[in-house]
């Protein structure tokens, strides 16, 4: 029983066919029509087998991610925006200035061309806003049913500014943990779309590129230890990973956890915990205690961080993640066995 995250093409509509992926005339046509005009840049236009980037001044950071989302289009974004922002954000939280991306598309035959064009336009829009360029790509077409409409992989290259050092090994007891804003918006938007629980259309994915915010933090703070992009698994998963890698205990304050009212409502209805839900435009930062207030002010001054809060602190330990509850008790938080799902119990 195929569930489509996009509208099936009408009879007259053009669709992607298997030959579009075989490297011949149709592939060239697809690239010329869909990708080149939107990802317009000299490197891509050369259509070489590899993009020659030239020397980069500084340590090079490389990352990759694949994007599989159903539905393809959702309030606040689409798979294309997700694919570009996701990789930009991985570079940004690593401390790098994002520069170049590759984009690989695996397309299910029958996908309307107009869907592909919309996705490409979304990707191009983020590139224009951030100055990042898509310089290489690939297109494959698979048989009906072999992909959920569209899968995208993006790899990204960024450059670390001189003197910037970030890492879990820098995290130490006494440090403070900040979150850049309201949690759970992306994950909940997707779930609510799937289960048709947002009749009022109030939920929106927070999908956004964080490189402006991270740049600000890196430039102004002297004791920025590490940052994390809060994607799948949410803030709790990222915090648990840092606690483990750094060999410390991280204690989060439940009363500080920032959640918008509509996300809270949806979490209650579905039985979900916002600490474990995916975000696509939020980060977590660990800073030295003396700079906590300054870090907070920097985040709040950024367009993507007005709801930033101090959400926890680092203590001695062996990789535990603890939640100080509203009541004053302590709960141990663990990694989830799988994605959060609507519950009745």
């Amino acid at each position, binding site marked *: *029983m195929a569930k489509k995250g996009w509208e099936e093409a009408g009879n007259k509509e053009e669709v992607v066919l298997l030959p579009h992926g075989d490297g011949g005339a149709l592939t060239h046509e697809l690239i010329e029509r869909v990708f080149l005009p939107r990802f317009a840049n000299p490197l891509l236009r050369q259509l070489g087998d590899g993009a020659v980037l030239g020397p980069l001044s500084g340590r090079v950071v490389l990352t990759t991610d694949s994007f599989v989302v159903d539905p393809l289009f959702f309030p606040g974004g689409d798979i294309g925006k997700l694919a570009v922002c996701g990789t930009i954000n991985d570079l940004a939280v690593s401390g790098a200035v994002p520069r170049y991306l590759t984009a690989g598309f695996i397309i299910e035959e029958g996908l309307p061309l107009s869907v592909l064009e919309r996705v490409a336009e979304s990707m191009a829009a983020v590139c224009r806003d951030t100055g990042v360029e898509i310089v290489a790509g690939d297109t494959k077409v698979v048989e009906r049913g072999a992909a959920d409409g569209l899968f995208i992989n993006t790899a990204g290259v960024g450059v670390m500014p001189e003197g910037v050092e970030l890492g879990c090994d820098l995290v130490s007891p006494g440090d*403070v943990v*900040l979150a850049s804003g309201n949690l759970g918006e992306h994950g909940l938007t997707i779930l609510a779309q799937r*289960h*048709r*629980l947002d009749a009022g259309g109030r939920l929106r994915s927070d999908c956004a590129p964080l490189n402006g915010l991270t740049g600000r933090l890196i430039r102004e703070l002297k004791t920025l230890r590490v940052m994390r992009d809060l994607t799948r698994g949410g803030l709790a998963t990222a915090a648990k990973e840092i606690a483990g890698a750094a060999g410390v205990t991280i204690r989060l*304050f439940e*009363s*500080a956890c920032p*959640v*918008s*009212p509509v996300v*809270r409502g949806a979490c209650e*209805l*579905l*039985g979900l915990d916002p600490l474990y839900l995916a975000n696509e435009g939020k980060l977590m930062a660990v800073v030295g205690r003396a700079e*906590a207030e300054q870090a*907070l002010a920097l985040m709040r001054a950024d367009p993507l961080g007005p709801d*930033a*809060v*101090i*959400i926890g*602190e680092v203590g001695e*330990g*062996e990789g*535990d993640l*603890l*939640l*100080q*509850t*509203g*009541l*004053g*008790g*302590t*709960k*141990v938080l*663990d990694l989830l*066995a*799988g994605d959060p*799902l*609507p*519950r*009745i*119990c």
Partner: protein
Amino acid sequence: MAESDRLPELERMRDADLARGLFGVVRDKASRVRDRLGRPLVVMEVCGTHTMAIARSGLRGLLAGLVELRSGPGCPVCVTDQGHIDQMIELASRPNVTVATFGDMIRVPGSRASLERARASGAAVEVVYSPADAVDLAAATAGEVVFLGVGFETTAPAVALSVQLAAGRKLANYSIYPAHKLVPPVMRTLLAMPELKLDGFLLPGHATAIIGRRALDFVGSEFGLPAVVTGFEVPEILDGLRVLLDLVESGRPAVENAYRRVVREEGNLQARAVMDRYFAVEDTAWRGFGRVPGSGMGLAVAYRDFDARIRFGLGEAAPGLEKGCRCGDLMKGLINPDECPLFGRACHPGRPAGPCMVSSEGACAAFYRYERRAGFPRAGGLEEAPIRG
């Protein structure tokens, strides 16, 4: 975080200061009772949602030494027998059959696999939020759709309504795999066990909203134990404990309603009428407990066409009681998790055997996570958050 059209009373019900104040009241009362009894009070809750809410609030640790909060067979998902899961998987694996289910069910293991594992092998399993969504699914597809009817009396009426919906839309491809459980019969079975040593119960607020406080009066009147129908916000859970402590102190084996904003004496008659029309009581197996008479529901005679077990020719489900599983003894308070022969070896959170481990906040799952950590902080009182953002 004020919502302009949010009822102020509902906001107040979640107020952290109110919760802390009530906690102080409960702690003081519990200290007095503990001193008189010469031991901590033992209170059992029989609702998976209470288990989760209590765990989430950190209350168990805060009341350590004063009140032992024990989990009974209150999670209808976790008490689904392995044999039933096996049949659900079998259905999902058939061509042209899609199983639709609440999300809670997909990781519960049968004797070999879970629905999630089966889905990875090609079984058609869809998670839905409401049984009404499963009916929509059936209307949109040519294949068969089987909804897994799991849940106590809170959920059964909604599932019954889905049969009504499907019948009204003349859908021939919708059916239910009935695995519902009833609260009063399992409470009776629990209370009749001679080794059970409890001081009282917190009763499930929403199941009781359907069946009525009166339906659980027997806990006090027949078995002499005090019990309190309790809500789910932290202040309400504390209030339930407060009322229970009063009953224990005064030696009154009564069943009180502390959730009057939702629960009525006679319950929801309309909901019960819907259940009575579409379902019929039957015996059924509970994971970790074995067969409990009159504790389950199948489809009523007039609606047998909607019973997936009949439609797909499934025989009697083989009961799954795993050899060595001592969840029953654990619930009675006879043993601790690490005294069960399966604990940590054949039974752990990645591969749970009985309900105590299936539930992520069940006694065994919690013990496995919390107690096996070195240096887990035992919070004894209230702590101020040192930094406020």
